[in-house]
C-alpha cells in the first residue's frame, strides 16, 4: 500500500515546479512550470478521496449502495483542471505581450517595461 507516499510526491512536484519558476530564463517555460506545480493539487485531492477497493462514483451499471470513492474531490479536480487550462492560456498571452513590448522572453531582461 502507498500510505503517505502521494503527499510526499505532491510536495516533490511543488518543489520542482517552484525550482523551475525560480531558475527560469524563458517566460513560456515559467508558465509550464507553474502548470506542473498546480498538478500537485490534483494528487492531494486524489489521495484524500481514494478508498482502497472502492469503485468509481458512476452508478450506471452498479446496484445502489455499492461503495464508491468520494465524488466531491473529483468534482473539485475537474474544476481545477479547467481553471488550470484557462490560467495557462491567460499567462501565455501575457508572456507573448511582454515579448512584444519588452523585446525578450527572459524575465531578467524585462526590467524596463515600456508602458
Amino acid at each position, binding site marked *: *500500500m*502507498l500510505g503517505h*507516499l*502521494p503527499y510526499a*510526491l505532491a510536495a*516533490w*512536484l511543488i518543489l*520542482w*515546479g517552484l*525550482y*523551475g519558476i525560480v531558475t527560469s*530564463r*524563458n517566460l*513560456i*517555460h515559467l508558465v*509550464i*512550470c507553474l*502548470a*506542473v506545480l498546480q*498538478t500537485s493539487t*490534483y*494528487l492531494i485531492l*486524489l489521495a484524500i478521496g*481514494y478508498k482502497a477497493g*472502492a*469503485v*468509481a*462514483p*458512476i452508478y450506471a451499471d452498479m446496484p445502489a449502495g455499492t461503495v*464508491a*470513492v468520494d465524488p466531491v474531490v*473529483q468534482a473539485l*479536480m*475537474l474544476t481545477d*483542471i*479547467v481553471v*488550470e*487550462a484557462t490560467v*495557462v*492560456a491567460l499567462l*501565455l*498571452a501575457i*508572456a*507573448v505581450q511582454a*515579448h*512584444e513590448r519588452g523585446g525578450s*522572453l527572459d524575465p531578467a531582461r524585462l526590467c524596463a517595461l515600456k508602458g
Partner: protein
Amino acid sequence: MIAPLQWLLFLLLAVTGPAVVLTREPVAQAVTVSFYGIVLALVFFLHQAPDVALSQIVVGAVALPLMILLAVAKVKRKEASRK
C-alpha cells in the same frame, strides 16, 4: 493487482514532473508536458476517477501543448519580422 501499477505510475510521475521542468526549450517542453499529462490521466483512471481522467487527457495532452506551440509560433514570427 493494483498496487504494482500504482507504484509504477507514481514513480513515472515523480520522474516526468522534474523532466518537464528541466526541459528548457518551450517547443520540446510541449512534448514532455503532454506525456506528463497522459501519465497523470492514467493515475486518475487507475484511482477510479474516469471523469477527471477524460478532462485531463483533453486538456493536458491536447489543449496545453497546443497553446504552448501557438504562443511560441507567435513569438518566433515577431522575432523574424523584427530582423
